[in-house]
C-alpha cells in the first residue's frame, strides 16, 4: 500500500452532480490509493481537516464527492479552479476488490467510494439508494447501477444469491446490509480529526469490538489494516 503524503494541492475543477459536488484536485505526488481509502482535506481557517473517500482518480487528479451539509462541506463545494487545499492521504484500509461475484451497494452520499471501485473492478453490478430523484443524479457516476428512491430500500433489491457485497451508506443501511450479508465489506463513517490514529474521535463498536475507523477501517471486514500509518518512509514526508 502506498504511504500517505500531505501536500497543498490546487483545485482542478468542480462539477455539480445532483445535490452533490464532484471536486477534483491536481494529484501532484499523491497516490490515489485503493477504493474505500480516504484523504483528509484541510481548508485554510479551519481547525481540523475532514475525511473524504476517494471517488474517482482520473489521470493526474483526485476526485471527491462532497455533500454540502455543514460549513466546511459548503465551502469545499464553492472552491474554484486554482484554489489550494491541504490534502493528506491515502489513509485507512480500503476494500478488498479481488473478490468473486462483487456487488456494490450505496446509500446517499455513501455512493462516494463506489465510482472508483466500479472502475477498478470492471464495472460490477451496483444497487444505489437515495432520498430523492435529485440526490439520485449521483448514480450516473456508477455504471450498471440499479437505483431505488425512498421508501424503497437497497436491502430490498439485494439478490438472495450469495454475492460479495461492498457497501457504503448511512449507519442504519450498513446494519441492515450486515444482517443480510454478514461478511459484507462495510465502509463506515465517524467524525475524525487526524486520520492516523491519534485522536480516538472515530471509534465505533463493531461486533463487540471497539475500532478506530481511521486505522482499523473505514472498511470493516475489508483489507487488514497496514500499521503503523506514519513510519518515516520517504513517501510520507509532509509538505
Amino acid at each position: 500500500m502506498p504511504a500517505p503524503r500531505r501536500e497543498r494541492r490546487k483545485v482542478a475543477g468542480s462539477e455539480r452532480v445532483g445535490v452533490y459536488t464532484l471536486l477534483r484536485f491536481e494529484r501532484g505526488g499523491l497516490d490515489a490509493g485503493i477504493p474505500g481509502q480516504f484523504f483528509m482535506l484541510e481548508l485554510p481557517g479551519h481547525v481540523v481537516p475532514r475525511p473524504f473517500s476517494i471517488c474517482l482518480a482520473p489521470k493526474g487528479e483526485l476526485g471527491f464527492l462532497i455533500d454540502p451539509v455543514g460549513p466546511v462541506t459548503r465551502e469545499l463545494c464553492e472552491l474554484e479552479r486554482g484554489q489550494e487545499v491541504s490534502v493528506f492521504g491515502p489513509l485507512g484500509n480500503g476494500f478488498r476488490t479481488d473478490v468473486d461475484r462483487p456487488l456494490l451497494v450505496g446509500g446517499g452520499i455513501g455512493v462516494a467510494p463506489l465510482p472508483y471501485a466500479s472502475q477498478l473492478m470492471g464495472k460490477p453490478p451496483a444497487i444505489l439508494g437515495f432520498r430523492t430523484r435529485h440526490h439520485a443524479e449521483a448514480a450516473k457516476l456508477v455504471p450498471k447501477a440499479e437505483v431505488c428512491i425512498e421508501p424503497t430500500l437497497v436491502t430490498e433489491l439485494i439478490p438472495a444469491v450469495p454475492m460479495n457485497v461492498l457497501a457504503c451508506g448511512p449507519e442504519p443501511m450498513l446494519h441492515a446490509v450486515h444482517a443480510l450479508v454478514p461478511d459484507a465489506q462495510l465502509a463506515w463513517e465517524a467524525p475524525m480529526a487526524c486520520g492516523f490514529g491519534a485522536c480516538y474521535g472515530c471509534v465505533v463498536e463493531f461486533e463487540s469490538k471497539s475500532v478506530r475507523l481511521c486505522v482499523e477501517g473505514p472498511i470493516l471486514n475489508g483489507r487488514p489494516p497496514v500499521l503503523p500509518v506514519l513510519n518515516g518512509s520517504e513517501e510520507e514526508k509532509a509538505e
Partner: protein
Amino acid sequence: MILNASGCLDALTAPAVARKLDAYVVKTVTLEPRAGNPQPRLAETDFGMLNSIGLQNPGVERFCTEVLPRLEELGIPLWISVGGAEATEYAEVCARIGERATVHALELNLSCPNVDPAAEGAAEIVAAARAATEAPLYAKLSPLLPDVAGVAKSVLEAGATGLSLVNSLRGLALDEWTLEPRLGRGVGGYSGAALRPVALAAVFICYKATDGEVPIVGMGGVETGKHALDLIAAGASAVALGSILFRDPNAPERVRGELAEELSARGFKRPEEARGVAHRSQND
C-alpha cells in the same frame, strides 16, 4: 523540550511523529479499562475544537502487558498520563507501572473535562501517587481553577515534581438545525487556538507563584514556534503540542525549527535563557 499533549498522538500508529519529540506522553491510563464516550466525539467550533473521548484506554493491566512493551521498543523517552476516579486508583496505576528506565515521568491527569471529577482534591491525589512511586510526577491542572497558583503550590507540597498547564476548557457546540449538542455527551473539552492565552496566563501565574523553581510543561493552542516561545517566556520549561498534531503531523519538527529561529532572532542561544523573561519587568 517539545512533547505532545496526552491523547493527541499514538506513537504506535505514528512512530515517525513521536520520534521528533523529546518525550512521548502516552494517552491517559486508568486502573480499569474504559470504553470511552458515545459518538459523536468530535466537533469543530469557533476558534478551536471540542472532543469527548472519555479517557478510552485498555486499563493498566493490558497497558503494561500489551502496549507498554511495544512503546518501549520505539526507544523514545516515555511519560505516562495517569487517570482515575479516586486517589487510590491513581496510586494503584502508578504502582503497577512501577519504576522503569523508559518511563521518565508520570503525569497525573487531574482535570479531564470529559469524565466525572475524582472524589478527592488534587493534593490528596498527588500525595497518594507520591506514596506509590518515586518517579517524577507532573500534576496536570485545569484552566478552570479559580486559584491555579494555590492548587499548584498544594500539589507541589504533596510531592509533585512539576506542573502540566493546562488541560482543555469545557465547551459546547449545538447542531445548526436541531440545536442539540453536537457531541454525544453534550459538553466536551475545548482546545486549540482559543486556549492559547488561557494557558499562557496559567503558566505565567504558576511560574511566579513558584519563583521559577519547578519544571512547567506549557500547553494549549501551540501551533507555531512563536507560540512555544511565548509559553517559555511566561515560565514553561517544556512545551507540549496538542490539537495541531491532528492537522499537521509534521508539527514537532516544524515548531522546533521555528522556535530556534524565534530564539535566535531575539538573541537567545538556548530556550532556557528565555524562560521566564516575561516576568522581568513585573513588579510585585
